[in-house]
C-alpha cells in the first residue's frame, strides 16, 4: 500500500490517456537516463539521439500493449526498447561485425580502482571500448544479461560472448588505469 508501489502504474494510466502534455512531461523525466543508456551503446550523440527518438516512437505506439508487472517495470520496459533499438542500429551501421577482430590485451590490471571516478567519467571511459566489446560489456554488466541471452541478441555463440566479455573487462581495466595515470600526472 505504499505509494511507491503505485506511482508507476498511476503514471502508466495517465500515459494511456494519450495526452501530449503528459507524454511530454514523462519524456522530460525519463529521457536523460534513457539518452545516457543510448549513448553507452551508440557512443556518438547523433546516433544516440536517433536511437532515442525511434525508441520513444516505439514506446508511445506500443504503450497499450505493455503489461504492468510491478513498480519499475515500465522503466525497465522502456530501457529494454532503447537497448533493442541501439543494437538494431549498431547492426544496421555494421558496427557489430568487428566483434572477433579486436586484439587481446593481456597485461591489463585485474581490479582497477573505480570508487573515485564519477559516473560521467565512467561513461566517458566506457565509450572508449570498441563497439563489440562495449556492447557485450553493457549487456552483461549493466543489463545483467546472461551470455546465453547476449548470444541470442547478437547472433553469436555463448562462448564468443564470454570471451568478448573477458577481453572487454581487461581492456576496460587498462583504460581506467591509463586514465587515472594520465590524471595523476596532470595534477
Amino acid at each position: 500500500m505504499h505509494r511507491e508501489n503505485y506511482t508507476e502504474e498511476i503514471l502508466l494510466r495517465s500515459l494511456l490517456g494519450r495526452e501530449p502534455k503528459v507524454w511530454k512531461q514523462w519524456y522530460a523525466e525519463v529521457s536523460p537516463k534513457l539518452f545516457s543508456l543510448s549513448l553507452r551503446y551508440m557512443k556518438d550523440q547523433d546516433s544516440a539521439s536517433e536511437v532515442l527518438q525511434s525508441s520513444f516512437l516505439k514506446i508511445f505506439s506500443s504503450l497499450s500493449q505493455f503489461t504492468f508487472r510491478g513498480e519499475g517495470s515500465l522503466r525497465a520496459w522502456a530501457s529494454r526498447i532503447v537497448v533493442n533499438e541501439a543494437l538494431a542500429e549498431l547492426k544496421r551501421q555494421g558496427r557489430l561485425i568487428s566483434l572477433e577482430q579486436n586484439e587481446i590485451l593481456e597485461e591489463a590490471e585485474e581490479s582497477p580502482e573505480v570508487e573515485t571516478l564519477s559516473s560521467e567519467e565512467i561513461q566517458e571511459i566506457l565509450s572508449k571500448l570498441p563497439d563489440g566489446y562495449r556492447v557485450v560489456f553493457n549487456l552483461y554488466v549493466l543489463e545483467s544479461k546472461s551470455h546465453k541471452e547476449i548470444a541470442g541478441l547478437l547472433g553469436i555463440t555463448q562462448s564468443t560472448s564470454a570471451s568478448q566479455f573477458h577481453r572487454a573487462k581487461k581492456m576496460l581495466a587498462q583504460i581506467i588505469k591509463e586514465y587515472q595515470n594520465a590524471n595523476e600526472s596532470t595534477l
Partner: protein
Amino acid sequence: MKEKWLDQIREKVENHSSEPPKELWEELEQSLLRDSEWPVTSDRKPKRNRRVPLLWAASLAGIGLVTLAVYFFRPDAIDPAQKSPTIANHQSSRPSNAITPVTGEDSKEGSALDTGNTRSSLEVESTSAMANISKDKASFWSVGETNVPDTSLERMALVFTRPLGVLLVSSPPLPSLPPVKEPKVHYIASTQGDRTAHEAKKNWAIGPVLGQSSGGTDFQYPGYYSMSGAALPSVALLEAEGAYSQVFAANLDREVETRVSHKMPINLGLGLSIPLEGRWSLNTGLTYSQLNSRLQSGTKESHWQTQQKLNYVGVPVQVNYQVTKGKKVSTYAFAGAEVKKMVGGSQSTEYTVNKESAQVKKVKVNEKPFQVSTRAGVGIEVPLYKNVNFFIEPAMEYHLDDKSSLQTIYKESPTNFTLKGGLRISLDSK
C-alpha cells in the same frame, strides 16, 4: 560472480543521465502527430474551443442588446414576482432552463459556488455540476436533439433587482463548446447583493460592476489528472502522502476519468468615464475577478477533487464611441484591453476513498501571473443618478497566454463572449 569494481561501475552508470538535444522532443512531437499517436488531441483539448465564430458572437451580442433594451424600456412591466428566483423557476417551461436558488440546495453536486468572498454573488452554470460530456462527435453535434431550447432568447434568463441591476445570463452553448446536458442558472443569496445595492446608492463611487462570461467549460478525460494539468506530478504524490495511493488502490481494475469544469468568472469593479473629443470617451476602472474551477479524478466512489479559486485584480482601459444618445438609453461601441494580476488563490483537494473523505489538503497558489486580455463589443448605458450610469456591454474577449501553469477558463478558451454590467461614473459635466 561479478567483481566488485564491475558492480561499482554499474551503480555509477545507473546514476548517470545525459540531457538529450532539445530539438529531439520537437522532432518526436512531429513524428507522433504524423503517426496520429495523438488522435484525441483534437477531440479532447478542443482546439475549436479557441475559435468562437464571430457570427455567433455578433448574434449573441445583438440578442443580448435587444433583450436588455426591452427590459430597460419597460422597467414597469417587470412582474415583482420575478425578482424571486424560485418563481422564475416555476415560470420556466423547460426544466433545463430553470433558475434555481442555490442556497442550501444542490450541494451534493458540489455546484454551489463558494460565495464567501464575493459580496454580490451570482453564478451561472451552463451545466449541472458534472455534466457528462460525451466524447464522440455524434452526440457532440446533437445539441438540437437534447432538450436544449432552440432560441437564444429563451435561454437567456434575466433577473432584475432595483435599484441596482443584477444581470444573469445563460447564453446558448457556443458551437465550440461540448454540449451541456442540463443548463442551469443559479441565483445565489441575494441578500448580500441587496446590501451592496444600498451601499452603492448611498455612495455612488463604489458601484459594483458585475460581469459574467458566457458559459463555463467542462472537459472529461480518461485517466487521472491533477489541477496542474500534469498527469500526476510526483510532487503531488509526495504532498498527499498516502491519499493518492489509497484512491488509486481503491480504483484498481476500474475505469477512471477526470472531469474538469471551469466556472464563469465573476467580476466586480468600478468604472470611470473620461470624455474625449466628440462622441469618444476613455473608460477605465478597477475590476476584481474570481475564477473557480473544479477537477475530479478517479471514480465516483474514490477520487480526488480539487477546488481552485483564483482572485484577480485588474485595470481595464477602453475607448467608447457613442453611437446613439437618448434620454433613457445610449448605445456605444468600444474596444480596449485589460491587465489583470493574480493576487491570490488556493487549491483545496479532498481525497475520497470508497465514498468516505480520507484527507483534505489545501494549498496556496504561489504563481501570480499577469493576465492580459483584449476586448471589443457594444454596450448600452442608462443614466441612474446624476452622472452615474448603469451599463451593460456584451463583448468578445481574447485572453493572452499568461505563461503560467495555472489551469483556468482563460486558458481553456482564450476567446470568449462575456457580458459585463455595472456602474460607471462619467466625468462629463453635461
